[in-house]
């Protein structure tokens, strides 16, 4: 099955080729994550005309421009709020949000927890590279302890956020995390998120090679991606939670799943009932 769609899936069918090559640095994991997203979209046979991608500001935010769909590159931290309006107003669209760790968890943290709570059908893809890459490499809410960034010259002293635990606690219907190392599994995870009837939060641990990697002496792009394998332990099994090798790394896999009612449908049902009653 995997082999079949891999042969069938040409990422270029989903890209705005006139925008390529993209602006990401060499070796940036975001490109790999974008492929996984587009592959998942391909596998599900989603109509590009009915697909809306909303993205925020930052390296991850720029990705929407490369997708051949209805794309919206909005303000910093707010893509979930824009997407909420879009999805509520247009339930016929499939709305995907692409956001980064700073966009989603720092400036947009409030929107994340409420999107999880509200459980509107949205797929939120958070690309976590542990750093504010576009602004030159400042510490972010997910930067691991002791890491060097331009604003943590002493090494990061703040504990880092576990975004999936946050999303789970806030009530997200689907929560998963994967690394870019294992593309087919990442694709399957995103696919499961896209198929989830409510709010789905998918975190992708993605390498920032040029800024974060360099600052922390993490080697070349390939060394960084190999580190995902040796430290984080990605496996090919979608339905298992993989505990990482490195002590402060976070588990991967599908971390939470529930069948809470989807908000948009619930609202429309209640409205129809009220109309019928009056």
């Amino acid at each position, binding site marked *: 099955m995997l082999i079949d769609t891999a042969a069938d899936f040409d990422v270029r069918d989903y890209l705005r080729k006139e925008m390529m090559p993209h602006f990401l640095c060499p*070796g940036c994991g975001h*490109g*790999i994550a974008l492929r996984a997203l587009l592959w998942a979209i391909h596998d599900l046979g989603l109509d590009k005309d009915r697909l809306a991608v909303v993205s925020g500001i930052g390296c991850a935010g720029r990705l929407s421009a490369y997708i051949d769909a209805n794309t919206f590159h909005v303000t910093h931290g707010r893509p979930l709020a824009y997407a909420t309006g879009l999805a509520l107003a247009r339930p016929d669209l499939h709305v995907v949000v692409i956001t980064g760790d700073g966009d989603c968890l720092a400036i947009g943290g409030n929107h994340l927890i409420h999107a999880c709570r509200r459980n509107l059908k949205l797929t939120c893809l958070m690309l976590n590279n542990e750093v504010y890459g576009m602004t030159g490499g400042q510490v972010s809410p997910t930067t691991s302890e002791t890491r060097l960034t331009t604003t943590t010259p002493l090494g990061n002293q703040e504990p880092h956020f576990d975004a999936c635990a946050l999303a789970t606690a806030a009530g997200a219907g689907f929560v998963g995390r994967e690394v870019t190392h294992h*593309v087919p599994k990442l694709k399957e995870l995103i696919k499961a998120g896209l198929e989830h009837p409510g709010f789905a939060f998918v975190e992708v641990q993605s390498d920032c090679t040029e800024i974060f990697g360099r600052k922390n002496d993490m080697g*070349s792009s*390939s060394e960084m991606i*190999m580190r995902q394998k040796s430290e984080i332990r990605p496996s090919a099994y979608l339905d298992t939670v993989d505990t990482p090798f490195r002590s402060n790394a976070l588990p991967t896999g599908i971390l939470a799943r529930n069948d809470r009612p989807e908000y948009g449908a619930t609202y429309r049902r209640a409205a129809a009932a009220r109309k019928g009653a009056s």
Partner: protein
Amino acid sequence: MRDPVTTVRPDPASPDSPALKADRADDAFNVLIVGVGGQGVIMVSKVLALLAQSQGFEVKQSEVHGMAKRGGSVFSHVRFGKRVWSPTIPKGDVDILVALEWAEGLRWLPFLKAGTGIFICDTKRIVPPFACLNRRPGAPLRYSKETPTEVVTHVGEAYAIDATDMAEKLGNERAANVVLLGALSTALEFSTTDWERTVAEFVPKKTVAVNLEAFRRGRGWIEEARNTTPAVEAPVTRTPTPADAAYRVRLEINPVWCKSCDICVKMCPEHCLRLNADRIAELAEPERCTGCRLCEWLCPDFAIRVHLDSAGAVAQQGLAQ
């Protein structure tokens, strides 16, 4: 299509079938369960241990696992009797060897009691990465080539059962180990009710039904096998792969999109890519390329596309049939 295969029945004249020996006063009864990580070896041994304990036996169980959660070799010794001294079974003392994977089963065969040991083995083959001589699909493997027919010549009583297929048909591939438990139950004198109660206690609530069915099928399969003439031919089943079809791998590399990050070069399992003088990825050793697509998937710049040139034609043939 992948039917359970070979049976070697015990000689009806044999005076002491191991199944009758559970109440041996002196020696402990020894069951060795083997497989690879993730298959549920430990579960099989725990159920057996629990059951034996509930029947009043002293039980010792020891295992080696955790070195690889998935894919690595795992084995578990279960010994029970009136007194059990050592937790491990000496070589050649195993009464019943239960193997959840074919090659693992073969590997542990020398532990089986000569002449009387019972061998119950899943025909499931999990080929470890290091057994690959060449990554090109269809290449020869450094994996056991013995067929079940060859194997049975070494042992007193042997069952090669495609438990994985049976479990799959029940809708839960993971219940293969319970199919083998069912098979194992026919060789011990505990009552079916006790077996089933123990299994039900052990598995997650929502899978009780499927696991009990798996247990019954495993048990039923052995019972049926004992009453039928042994099959002679027993080919080991193998999932067909695209490697069976002839195709040519071609890499389409877009030099304008390539950013020279070296991920494809370093991550290629065959090391057949390199950066050329312009620091653009190129396929240096096309004959080594297996078409695994890792370079395509991991290229952050969408610069590589892997074409399996005749794959389409093969697929079309398949459709035409």
